[in-house]
């Protein structure tokens, strides 16, 4: 899915492990490679090891085991300042004792560029983030969004091929975050730089990235483009973590290559797509997206299994209706329906039947 021209690996993690205390592995056997020009997001809850991976790539942490390669060369023993990787931090890390211009000049000065070259590059970088007139301000005189633009410009001013971003938008409000999300992706693709982006915000990950690596417990749970990640989660963690998700638990009763039957703990039988199950009798957790739950049974296959459900709550959301149902003993089952003329507005206590296409219901690990 890389948008860059090259398919050759630009950044590579090979069997990388990391432990801080010698007792617990924070990163367990990480293998990851990304081509030049790709925008890759590391997504995961806090403590999942994503930031550690980023820090190892930047050189601020050393890998306990394994090799990290940049453009084919191992960088395990190269100190951070020689890696030539741009970096954007969550708290912006703009030097408060320097003006915006001086901040941008810093990486150029340590590279011993001439004054005219510096001026030229600074002006170009500031224009890139539309902050040209703020050159002589102090970072403290800027708003959060402006500071992050400057931080971005500073990370790009020395023209690195790889830029790392550690939750750069975490401290901004929602509207600003969305604007900047767009600006960052647009800029990254325009400049053709490779970006490794760390966030715990799944919307951010889905909207910005070429590919997303979902981290949990020190491992990549799934590495896939956003649509695949959302529609075809490989395991129940990913299904839970990305987007809204309904989970039901049960035992595989019948299985073939494309479908399986799952008997829920309440006794009901449903259709599902076998993803992480292989044999009859295995416990499984099935995952259905709320918008794939169907209450209009005519739209389903006539043989499809359906379930009885009791309406608990009906929430009018404008473009959609959100209905909380009691299904198979669980009362947190969500159904999301489009606001269409033929869509009934349900009332609490109403009894309905629901179903879904077998391929929308993924039988994952228990």
């Amino acid at each position, binding site marked *: 899915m890389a948008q860059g021209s090259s398919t050759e690996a630009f950044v590579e993690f090979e069997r990388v492990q990391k432990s801080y205390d010698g007792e617990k592995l924070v990163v367990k056997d990480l293998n990851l490679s990304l081509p030049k020009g790709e925008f890759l997001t590391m997504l995961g809850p806090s403590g999942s090891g994503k930031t550690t991976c980023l820090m190892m790539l*930047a*050189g*601020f942490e050393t890998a306990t085991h394994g090799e990290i390669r940049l453009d084919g060369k191992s960088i395990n023993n190269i*100190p*951070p*300042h*020689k*890696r*030539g*990787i*741009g*970096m954007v*931090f*969550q*708290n912006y*890390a703009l*030097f*408060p*004792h320097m003006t915006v211009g001086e901040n941008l000049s*810093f*990486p150029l000065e*340590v*590279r011993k560029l001439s004054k005219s070259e510096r001026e030229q590059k600074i002006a170009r970088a500031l224009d890139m983030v*539309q*902050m040209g007139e703020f050159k002589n301000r102090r970072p403290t005189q800027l*708003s*959060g*969004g*402006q500071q992050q633009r400057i931080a971005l410009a*500073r*990370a790009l001013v*020395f023209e690195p091929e790889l830029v*790392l971003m550690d939750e750069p938008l975490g*401290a*901004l*409000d929602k509207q*600003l975050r969305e*604007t900047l999300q767009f600006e960052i992706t647009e800029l990254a693709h325009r400049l053709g730089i490779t970006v490794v982006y760390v966030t715990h915000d799944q919307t951010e990950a889905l909207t910005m990235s070429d590919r997303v690596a979902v981290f949990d417990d020190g491992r990549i749970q799934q590495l896939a483009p956003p649509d695949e990640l959302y529609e075809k989660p490989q395991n129940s963690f990913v299904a839970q973590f990305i987007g809204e998700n309904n989970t039901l638990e049960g035992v595989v009763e019948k299985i073939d290559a494309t479908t399986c039957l799952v008997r829920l703990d309440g006794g009901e039988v449903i259709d599902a797509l076998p993803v992480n199950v292989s044999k009859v009798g295995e416990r499984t957790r099935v995952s259905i997206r709320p918008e794939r739950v169907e209450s209009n049974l005519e739209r389903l296959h006539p043989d499809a299994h359906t379930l009885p459900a009791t309406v608990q709550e009906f929430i009018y959301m404008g473009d959609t209706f959100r209905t909380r149902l009691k299904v198979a003993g669980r009362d947190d089952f969500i159904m999301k329906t489009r606001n269409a003329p033929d869509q009934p507005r349900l009332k609490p206590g109403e009894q309905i039947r629901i179903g879904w296409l077998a391929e929308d219901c993924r039988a994952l690990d228990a």
Partner: protein
Amino acid sequence: MTDSATTPPRQPMAALPGGEVTEEGPMLAADGRPLKHSLNRALRREKLRAFLLVSPLLIFILVAFVAPIADMLFRSVENQIVSETLPRTVAALREDQNLPQAAPGEPVYEALYTDLFIAAEYKSHTRLGSRLNYEMTGLSSLFRGTGRDVGRFDTDIYTDQFIEAEPALEDPVAWTNWMEQDEIRAGLPFTADAWDAWVKLTVEANEDDPLEEDVEDFVYTALYRDLANGADPEGFPDVDVSEFETVSIKALFEESDEDWVDPEIWQVIKTYSPAYTDGYFLNSVDMMNGPDGDAQWRPADEQIYLKLFWRTMWMSLAITFSCILLGYPIAYLLSTLPLRSANVLMILVLLPFWTSLLVRTSAWKVLLQQQGVINDTLVWLGIVSDANRLALINNATGTVIAMTHILLPFMILPLYSVMKTIPPSYMRAAKSMGANDWTAFWRVWFPLSVPGIGAGSILAFILSIGYYITPEIVGGTEGVFISNRIAYHISSSLNWGLAAALGTILLALVLTLYWVYDRIVGIDNVKLGG
């Protein structure tokens, strides 16, 4: 740019709702009054409450701290002792034309006789002697000696001749009657003054009844002066004094101590006769009032204070600098270590605070002396020969070493609290941009830690400039500070005026430095915590 600051500037809560902006003029509250007014009124209660909460401490500080200090500082210019002890002499000196070329004339000595006689009775002449001794050595013993002699001056010849000429003059009751008559008092000014002084003296100092005592010689001497001047008040017995045998008071003083005719001594008394003096301050900077009344340098062998001030300054600077040198790396380590190890290290830093200052200083005495641990070790290692043991104590070196140790926590704590606020991401950012460890430190970390250095330095410097105990114990003669001299004048030489002047200069010095520092670094940049 579409985005604005994420947090709007905080504004004080309006006291009353409904604040509206009129086209022009101030913001008005709902009741139409200026909003500022309403706000102030609403805050008044809170302010009052706050004031009440601090008032016990405020009163305590005013009474126990500010007032004594103000009083002490006042002593640096106060000089009423001369004019209070020798009021008549001071007045007579003002009239005198002989000074500074020659000793003053007879009237000054006559006035001094009365003054000194009374002062000797009150025993206040020794205090005056000590005071004037600060300005000129020898004056203390001069006053003491003559104070003993003054009661035995040969002025009784006047007494005897008066009583012989008019026996009524022996009777204190008759004197009392005369001295109640205004015409007589006006006619005999010296006598009236002497009489009043004698009555006061008899009642106050000797607790006797003047009506039953013999009138003292100095009253008769004063009477002689008046009558010799040609006074003849109505109602007072007529005594012809032209045939009286006389005696020169000046000669009597000269007989008691020939220094009394030395014009230099009289010049000192005259110079210090006003109620306020700059003498203590001049003394504090190794100057004095010369014979012609102009300020001039003291003789080179008496110059000590400027040297001491200078030494206090440079040694305090040396101590502050050593504190930075030793404290900075520790503070850096403290701020970068994980919390648990940092806490252990912090306890070690604070440990000196929990040990008595005296114990720590004495420990340095043990370590630094010629036969001490450090010298022994150096000799044992062969670095220093036994004959050339290092002089590490009782000199400036000893003071700098011990003071650095004692003031180190005052440097580390502000440094630490500032460094703690520097996010580690700054260094990472610098390195990610290609700066090596040193450049990242020097260009990013160090400038951000400067407020900590400033705070620590100002604390260590001000503490050290006024330090007393440690220099006293380990400083010997070469390593003592101005404060040791102040303490000496407070408790040993009892020259409180000089001590106060030195203290005032020290205070002014610190305040000036503080002001300069504020100008250069800005006191707002100093962070002592949080």
